[in-house]
């Protein structure tokens, strides 16, 4: 499985309040949430994002609230993968549980700029920056998490187990 698209690049500590502000949490509809994704940090994001695009960020992406609305909004906006130096732990769990692909890779976070064309091979974990002609090795998930991802989320994984 591969993801390929244009990169939206952000810095350290992108929190869940800027990914999806709480003023929109009176809804849990993915499409409605996607309409406000990243609004408080990047007003142009929702107008420019295309199906398959990627978000790349530095340290501690998704810190703050436990709101699953954050990865839901990102996924529903068409983003195919989030790459970061590190993720906040609740965001990390939530992304895996809802089937939004994420990869921790400090080298890629440093070597990719806003607007670069990037391709990710989920099987090998290789991240290719097609604009710059460079590539990086992302960290593989532990076997257990790969099973959840292959089942396309925690609920399906539990259903399959039973």
């Amino acid at each position, binding site marked *: 499985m591969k993801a390929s698209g244009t990169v939206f690049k952000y810095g350290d500590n992108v929190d869940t309040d800027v990914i999806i502000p709480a003023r929109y*949490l009176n809804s849990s509809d993915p499409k409605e949430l996607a309409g406000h994704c990243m609004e408080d940090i990047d007003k142009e994001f929702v107008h420019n994002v295309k199906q398959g695009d990627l978000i790349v960020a530095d340290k501690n992406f998704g810190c703050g609230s436990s709101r*699953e609305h954050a990865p839901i909004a990102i996924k529903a906006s068409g983003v195919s993968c989030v790459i970061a130096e590190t993720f*906040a732990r609740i965001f990390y769990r939530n992304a895996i549980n809802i089937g939004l692909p994420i990869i921790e890779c400090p080298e890629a976070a440093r070597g990719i700029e806003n607007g670069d064309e990037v391709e990710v091979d989920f099987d090998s974990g290789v991240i290719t920056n097609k604009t710059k002609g460079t590539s990086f090795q992302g960290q593989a998930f532990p076997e*257990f998490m790969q099973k959840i991802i292959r089942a396309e989320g925690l609920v399906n994984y539990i259903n399959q187990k039973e």
Partner: protein
Amino acid sequence: MGMTMTQKILAAAAGLPEVKAGQLIEADLDLVLGNDITAPVAIHEMDKFTAEGVFHKDKIALVMDHFVPNKDIKSAQHCKCVREFACKHEISNYFDVGEMGIEHALLPEKGLTVAGDVIIGADSHTCTYGALGAFSTGVGSTDMAAGMATGKAWFKVPSAIKFNLTGKLSKWVSGKDVILHIIGMIGVDGALYKSMEFTGDGISSLSMDDRFTIANMAIEAGGKNGIFPVDEAAVSYMKEHSKREFKVYEADEDAVYDQEYTIDLSALKPTVAFPHLPENTKTIDEVGEIEIQQVVIGSCTNGRLEDLRTAAKVLEGKKVKKGVRCIIIPATQRIYLEAMEEGLLRTFIEAGAIVSTPTCGPCLGGYMGILAEGERCVSTTNRNFVGRMGHVESEIYLASPAVAAASAVTGRISAPEE
């Protein structure tokens, strides 16, 4: 190799003699929590399970606290969805308007969280119950749904950072200043994926309310959980509030920690976190002249009785400065009542503050105190991210109830001594 306090609780809940940092385990849950924002998403996920029903109707807590009394039609729809779910599954710990309080103040008060428990909550501040010696951590709605359906959750066993607390806090210095100091020291990702284990002879001088505040903000350092040893004060709190049996775990003497810090409580000063991260801390003497337009005293971090008593001590016989809006939010109905009986509410109202029914309200920019462009607020809440309390060009300064109340009187960020 020895285990940390957190590791011991997780090993017992997983039915294992021993666990190691990094190990993936499946643990039995004592409580699964959700609120009016996160539970509707979880309830929707519940429909996808092939198995029907919930694992235990007494081990689920649903607290309507973020946007209640409902601020608009959409939030009313959310509460209705949770109310119907609670009714259908006969959830005994469903708390709606009239009984509700801010979840992390309410559940310990109701005796639903005790030492040795393994608790997940679809709210990041679920780590609060570590003050009682429980393992508790925030998760998302899908984890909550899986927890409600199966009574189990998967965890990666965390490594830990040890904070050795010594000495005693000075007057006007509180648990809030301790945790802001720590976050300023290690950063908002300083404890990422890790336990924050508090220990040392300084703990005996910390009130339970101080400990709840400290454990509550472990997440603001990226921590998986924050946890305190179970001493006499914790035992007496649990006996007063709960009929449940509790189990006391202690870290092994040869437990391994990633880092160890010693903090002399007597050296700490009132501390303020500047916009837009809780790690941007300054002590009160370094703050400078910062005018403010709003003060919020409340939230799961600082809406407890002791917080209100401190605020009242500062506001007694004083007036909130003209041009400043001071919003005080007792965290639960019981705290509200106790504050009324102690005369604290009279002090607040006579000072020109307002007192609200329990709600998370302004903390997350829901309602009850939204900031306009360019406005500044001193708040006893837990996050000062961009746009958290309103306009993206507004600013939040995190502080203790004492500093917040003093700032309400002067109209600028001020030390309680002023």
